[in-house]
């Protein structure tokens, strides 16, 4: 029989330390739904999603019950809609509404993939889709949108960066009566991955199979609790503890993923080895960094601590799963992390530090509320900076900022639920990057040798 202590450890992780499977995400290709009549294309999309994912929520709940592990979200990612729009035509909003209808019918939390990949330039459908994003996010509730504007191999499409600054602002404006929630469902990527199970950036890449199951794990609380038991160890020991803990967390993800794939009759894709925080106490990535010995997340030393954490999570998780992918690393979404919220409120965590942190962690500037007066070109410049970090370091970076229309620095936005709440952070608005952004064009792809 299994060791009593092992059983108690697992139960404790779930009941006390917020261990959960953050998401089971079903990736569905919509490439075979194209049609010369956009209405028929939409019907095909609805039918395919509801046929393949009709059981997703039920299977998720069954596994949750039988295995005793909470599975927080059941989601769907689809082929970037801009590709379907390019071949089927019609009004992009029609596709957004079709996805919403499919989300309602299947009962999933989110469908991601109202997306466009424009890292080198716009093709047919891309620009129309991007321009429709504000309305699409305002008129639907469970649809997420992402746009990839750069990559290490292609460089950064600054035309798209300029446009996205305007789109982010417009999305905030159009949803200003709902805490600018539209922007929480919109992410701008550099080096976007094709198998990401996490929202808002999930889409089903063209290299993926027709239908596939991805799993995203979570468990910052478990890592923090494990580190708490080692108050005086050196950093090598801490890395070792994080690796061991990440291994256990990931095994759980692997188990749930393979079980879900078996029950749904869909191939298993990847486990995303992530530490995804929630606003709940004891589920914070910032608190892990503080447990390591930083008085507050965001002070000097934060980047180093985060680098150690991120690397150890990957090293531990890789051996626990047969296929690893997605974003894999520690997330630092400000409004979704109790420790980050506190650090941002006290002014210890600033936008500049967050930007540095994104060079060594999973993704990028995530869930950051910025003053409503921030002009589009500054948002574009924030996106360009972040994309440059990703492009040069061959990693995924992203920007999900929320311009809080009508609010100023120091006031708060409250989205509720997993999206959390947080203070509006300071943005440097003294001087303008307008001329740089207005030049547009493309930043050439970086050299991959002479790395200094």
């Amino acid at each position, binding site marked *: *029989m*299994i060791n*009593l202590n092992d*059983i108690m450890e697992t139960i404790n992780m779930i009941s006390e330390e917020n261990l959960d499977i953050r998401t089971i995400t079903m990736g569905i290709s919509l490439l075979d739904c194209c049609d010369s009549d956009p209405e028929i294309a939409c019907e095909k999309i609805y039918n395919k999603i509801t046929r393949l994912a009709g059981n997703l929520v039920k299977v998720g709940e069954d596994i949750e019950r*039988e*295995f*005793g592990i909470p599975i927080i979200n059941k989601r769907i990612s689809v082929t970037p809609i801009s590709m379907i729009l390019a071949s089927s035509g019609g009004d992009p909003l029609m596709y957004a509404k079709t996805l919403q209808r499919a989300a309602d019918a299947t009962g999933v939390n989110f469908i991601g993939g109202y997306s466009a990949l424009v890292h080198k330039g716009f093709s047919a459908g891309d620009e129309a889709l991007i321009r429709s994003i504000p309305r699409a996010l305002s008129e639907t509730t469970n649809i997420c949108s992402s746009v990839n504007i750069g990559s290490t191999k292609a460089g950064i499409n600054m035309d798209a960066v300029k446009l996205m600054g305007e789109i982010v602002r417009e999305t905030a404006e159009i949803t200003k009566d709902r805490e600018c929630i539209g922007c929480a469902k919109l992410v701008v990527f550099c080096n976007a991955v094709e198998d990401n199970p996490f929202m808002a950036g999930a889409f089903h890449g063209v290299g993926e199979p027709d239908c596939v199951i991805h799993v995203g794990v979570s468990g910052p609380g478990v890592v923090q609790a494990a580190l708490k038991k080692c108050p005086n160890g050196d950093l090598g020991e801490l890395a070792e503890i994080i690796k061991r803990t990440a291994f256990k967390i990931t095994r*759980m993800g692997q*188990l749930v993923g393979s079980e879900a794939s078996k029950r749904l009759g869909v191939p298993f894709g990847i486990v995303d080895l992530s530490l995804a925080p929630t606003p709940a106490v004891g589920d914070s990535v910032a608190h892990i960094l503080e447990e390591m010995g930083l008085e507050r997340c965001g002070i000097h030393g934060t980047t180093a601590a985060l680098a150690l954490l991120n690397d150890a999570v990957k090293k531990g998780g890789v051996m626990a799963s047969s296929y690893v992918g997605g974003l894999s690393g520690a997330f630092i979404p400000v409004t979704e992390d109790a420790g980050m919220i506190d650090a941002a409120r006290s002014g210890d965590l600033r936008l500049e530090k967050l930007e540095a942190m994104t060079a060594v962690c999973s993704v990028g500037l995530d869930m950051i509320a910025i003053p409503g007066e921030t002009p589009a070109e500054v948002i574009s410049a924030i996106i360009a900076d972040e994309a440059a970090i990703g492009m040069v370091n061959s990693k995924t970076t992203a920007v999900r900022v929320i311009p809080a229309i009508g609010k100023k620095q120091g006031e708060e936005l409250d989205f509720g639920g997993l999206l959390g709440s947080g203070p509006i952070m300071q943005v440097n608005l003294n001087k303008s990057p307008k001329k740089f952004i207005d030049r547009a064009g493309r930043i050439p792809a970086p050299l991959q040798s002479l790395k200094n």
Partner: protein
Amino acid sequence: MKTVVSVIGKDAVGIIADVSAVCNECNANIVDITQSVLQDMFVMVMLTEIKDLNCSFTDYSNKMKKLGEDRGLDIRVMHEDVFNSMHRI
């Protein structure tokens, strides 16, 4: 399929009897059982085979949960694979 029934709470007379009664009622076979009392806390883990269950897994799990609520205990029913996968390579 085997499940691990874990019971944690304040020690009292008849806990094992009550949990076993639910197993009996649902036709779950007790394969192994281990328990200890740490200070005042009662900790028991029971491995049950549920292939011949006479009700659905959900009913079985809910009955255990209800018993836990009635007696002020934390009772969980979990698939044994959770523990195997987490603690064995």
